[in-house]
């Protein structure tokens, strides 16, 4: 059984077809990437999988179940998590508070909340606190835990956002341009970080630079004008003539 499967997934916006008959499959434990130039439909494809937009056509299956009609929140509860191109954190809260609130979605029960009304350390709250500490240790944010999330360096903000996304212990994590805006050093760190977390969950990365994801991915799918034009091992993609012509041509070698 495939972890994720889309069947003829399509999305039209006012006569413009953003995603075109995409059949995409993924097994548990893989780390794959979707690349394509800007406007290829990568983020829209993610939005269809997470339920932000209803598809014009086609279906989405997660763990064998048809989730096409489910709300984003319901898909989240099933283990499907994502990050966004523009970093989604609470800039005015501390790093620790950000992690805590991400943990709360797992431990939120109204009985817990009532208890924590009277004492700040009910079982629900401290389970969340423990979890938050654990993740912050793992991702290297523990030293910055009391700082304002908004004043973190960009790379750390992204790391925080991803940490918040994995707080709910998802099975599948969709990362939307996690390397965007990062310096070369930060990119290396983010790659190491991604490899580390890929040990316990399945990851789909969206990125528009092929070089960045070459070493990282087990498989690369190339999206162009809403449709997948090539899919295979990184080396195959790099040597694919059609891909070079349509996507890599004009980019030259860096």
């Amino acid at each position, binding site marked *: 059984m495939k972890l994720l499967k889309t069947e003829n997934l399509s999305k039209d916006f006012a006569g413009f077809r953003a995603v075109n008959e995409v059949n995409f499959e993924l097994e548990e434990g893989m780390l794959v990437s979707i690349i394509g130039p800007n406007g290829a439909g990568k983020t829209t494809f993610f939005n269809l999988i997470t339920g932000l937009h209803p598809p014009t056509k086609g279906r989405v299956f997660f763990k064998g179940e048809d989730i096409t009609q489910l709300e*984003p*929140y319901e898909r*989240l*509860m099933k283990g499907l998590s994502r990050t966004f191109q523009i970093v*989604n954190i*609470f*800039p*005015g*809260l501390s790093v620790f*508070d950000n992690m*805590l*609130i*991400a943990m*709360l*979605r797992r431990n*939120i029960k*109204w009985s*817990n*909340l009532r208890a*924590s*009304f009277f004492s*700040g350390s*009910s079982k*629900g*709250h401290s389970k*969340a606190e423990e979890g938050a500490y654990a993740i912050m240790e793992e991702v290297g944010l523990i030293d910055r835990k009391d700082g304002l999330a908004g004043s973190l360096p960009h790379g750390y903000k992204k790391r925080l956002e991803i940490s*918040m996304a994995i707080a*709910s212990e998802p099975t599948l994590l969709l990362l939307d341009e996690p390397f965007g805006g990062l310096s070369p050093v930060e990119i290396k760190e983010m790659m190491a970080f991604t490899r580390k977390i890929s040990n316990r969950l399945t990851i789909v990365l969206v990125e528009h630079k092929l070089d960045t994801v070459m070493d990282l991915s087990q498989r690369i799918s190339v999206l162009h004008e809403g449709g997948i034009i090539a899919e295979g091992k990184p080396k195959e993609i790099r040597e694919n003539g059609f891909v070079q012509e349509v996507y890599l041509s004009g980019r030259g070698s860096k």
Partner: protein
Amino acid sequence: MEISGSLILDQLVMGLAYGMILALVALGLSLIFGLMEVINFAHGAFYALGAYIAFAALGFVGNFWVALVIGAILVGVVGAVAERFLVRRVYVEPVRSLLLMFGVMLAILQGIRFIWGVAYQPFSYPRELLFTINAGPVSVSAYRVFIIIIAAAVSYALWLFLKKTSVGLIIRAGIQDRDMVRILGIDISKIFTLVFGLGIAIGGFAGILAAPMMGLYPEVGLEILVISFVVVVVGGMGSIRGSILAGIIIGEATSLCTLVYPEGSYVIPYIIMGAFLLARPTGLLGGKL
């Protein structure tokens, strides 16, 4: 007229007490606006309603303290019910929510007039606090000191709640970014009811505290509403500390102004607000405009 030191001190204490009342009212407004982006035009009406409910309770139980608690809780419940059935229908529509809250204000005002009449009602001070505190040359009304202390205590309790509990964290995050809290999978609509009720309860509590000092009549809410908006603007929308700070500033400014230029004390809050709107529109500590 010579202004003696004890007169100044008296006005300072009065200003602080008045300022803390304003701060409590502004706190409620700020919480509600911060989380739900509703401009609660009915806040003053709930302030008055709280005082009237306490007044009625006082008639039954004869005890100021019991009436204080009953009044605050009951008016908070009324607020929560109003949120659950009325306010939440107009959340993303600013014009409709303004109109709705205006309507609620009128309804409450008329309801008060209908039940208790239009005349001024005397609200007696609690017997226990009908004394003056004399410390050397200084002599201040015990009730005013009580207002300052209890308002500070309520503010601190609110701060603890927001900082230290899970619900408080969700509220703080929701004030930052409501949609993101939803994306995280947290059902924030129950929290809206809680926050609205809480904001109203705090406002009503302030109304009860103020009633012995400032008198009880149906329109008392209208007057406090306008000034409390000034406080929220000066303190910064959505900021708890800002509301308290601004409340104290405006309370003191008004009180001290009556010493030197009594007519000016009506205008001074607006002058301060005008200055802020020109120089620092987000207010003292606010983030949202």
